[in-house]
């Protein structure tokens, strides 16, 4: 059954969209990631214009992170103060991101920017995860205690310190603000929540306790992606609510199935699987840039 998407102005099979939403949902449920970094490139591949894919994915992420954060509210594992600082940075970053996106769209380079960002980030994150999970598997075979050092690095020398009670931290607001900005820019130009950048940054850079990291990042992601959705809707007219709703329907069902599969697999195995998937997606996008396309010309809107 075909469905005509009113903003993307293409007709797509509705079961293909539900399936994609479901598949990415399963993966995000299994690995506890948002899945935006998988969904957006998949949308490019089925012929959704990149500008629409990015903006619509932001809208879908609002829904999935809202669904996720509710559980964290109940468990009180959200650091609101830290979330707010990250959010301020995120809004600044998203504003810059949408502005850059609009400019590049006008000179026809949006596709390049989005693809390059994906290749770089998927490549880096995928490799890091792959190496780390390999090490983890090796270590788990040898019995031994993991030393957990309290880090005291350059971050503690920065001014404008603030106390974050929930996280038990007393650090400068500059690093969380910068992390927020980076995530905001990524949300606007890549159509991702940015959890895959923010979570490691919060643990390793800011030294936040693991139990509040996921809830706090979801809290920030909701607002940043909501703001991104609004900006894209108002400046680029590229949010396709119908597309978002279909993906979302598949996504929420898939996420629950995925969460159940995830429980049965070991954490290291899960992470190595995810790393392989991320690297595969990265390789596919990189090849598109490196191999001569069969059609050199493309038609853009005449504005």
């Amino acid at each position, binding site marked *: *059954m*075909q*469905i*005509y998407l*009113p*903003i993307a*102005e*293409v*007709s797509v099979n509705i079961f293909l969209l539900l399936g994609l939403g479901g598949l990415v949902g399963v993966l995000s449920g299994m690995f506890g990631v948002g899945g935006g970094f998988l969904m957006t490139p998949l949308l490019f591949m089925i012929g959704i214009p990149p500008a629409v894919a990015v903006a619509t994915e932001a*809208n*879908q992420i*609002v*829904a*999935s*992170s*809202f*669904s*996720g954060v*509710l*559980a964290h509210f109940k468990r009180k594992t959200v650091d609101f103060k830290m979330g707010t600082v990250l959010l301020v940075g995120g809004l600044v970053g998203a504003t810059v991101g949408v502005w850059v996106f609009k400019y590049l769209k006008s*000179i*026809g*380079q949006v*596709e*390049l920017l989005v693809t390059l960002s994906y290749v770089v980030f998927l490549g880096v994150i995928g490799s890091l995860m792959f190496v780390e999970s390999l090490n983890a598997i090796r270590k788990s075979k040898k019995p031994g205690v993991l030393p957990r050092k309290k880090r005291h690095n350059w971050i503690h020398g920065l001014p404008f310190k603030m106390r974050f009670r929930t996280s038990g931290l007393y650090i400068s607001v500059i690093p969380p603000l910068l992390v927020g900005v980076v995530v905001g820019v990524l949300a606007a130009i890549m159509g991702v929540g940015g959890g895959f950048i923010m979570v490691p940054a919060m643990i390793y850079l800011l030294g936040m306790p693991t139990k509040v990291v996921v809830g706090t990042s979801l809290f920030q992601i909701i607002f940043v992606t*909501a703001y991104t*959705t*609004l900006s*894209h*809707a*108002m400046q680029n*007219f590229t*949010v396709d*609510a*119908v597309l*978002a*709703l279909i993906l*979302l*329907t598949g996504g*929420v069902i898939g*996420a*629950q199935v995925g969460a159940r599969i995830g429980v049965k697999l070991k954490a290291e195995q899960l992470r190595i699987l995810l790393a392989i998937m991320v690297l595969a997606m990265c390789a596919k996008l990189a090849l*598109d*840039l*490196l*191999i*001569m*396309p069969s*059609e*050199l*010309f*493309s*038609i*853009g*809107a*005449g*504005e």
Partner: protein
Amino acid sequence: MLRKLIFILSFLATPLMAQESVVVDLSQNRVAITANFAGSEIFVFGAVKRDGPMAEGLAPLDVAIVVEGPLASTVVRKKEKRFGIWLNAEAVEVEAVPSFFTVVSTGPLDEILNEGDRRDFAIGLDYAIRRQAKETPGINVAEFSEAITRIRLDNGLYAERDGVLSLNEETLFNASIQLPANLIEGDYTARIYLIRDRNIVADTSVEISVRKEGFERWVYNLSRQQPLLYGLLSLLVALIAGYGASEIFRLLRR
């Protein structure tokens, strides 16, 4: 002198020959793009009207039908290998490009009609794009116009089909025009030409209105006219869906 004579003679001869005109009807004058729009087909039915008996010894009649979407200026980009990767390099803006263009005829266009008329009335894919882009030094602009035709031919927005139009008894004809699912809304026209001896002898045109309708129309209009409200509504839908999903699965887990 001879040419003048022929002209006067042909003028005199005209009233003696039967005047031919063309009458057409379409299976639909409106195409509604609704949520489940998956392309459509328009049938063109036509008849040749004569106010007297057909003259003897005339060349056989040919018919060509051009269905065309709204014209728009279109940017075409060409990829080039720079810094080791393929990226959009040159861009050319081509004016007056039809969003949709299909021509059907009783025979090969270059055989049944003279080149001048084909160009002047844009009958044939090679004349679908009227105006060439502004000459830019160092850029082969013709290549860019050709690319538009090639890409749209590929995705079904452009087509040229010889011989699919059937003409019965030099009088009745019908043809079907395929509209693909990736249609853009706007005012389309169907132009019908009667051709004899490689010259156009009669023509007419009919409007076809292609519009998004119902829910599609509402969503599209809202997104353009009230972008803030549209964005907020999209968010509201997302929040309700997110909340709903977490509640439903909380109940299921019990």
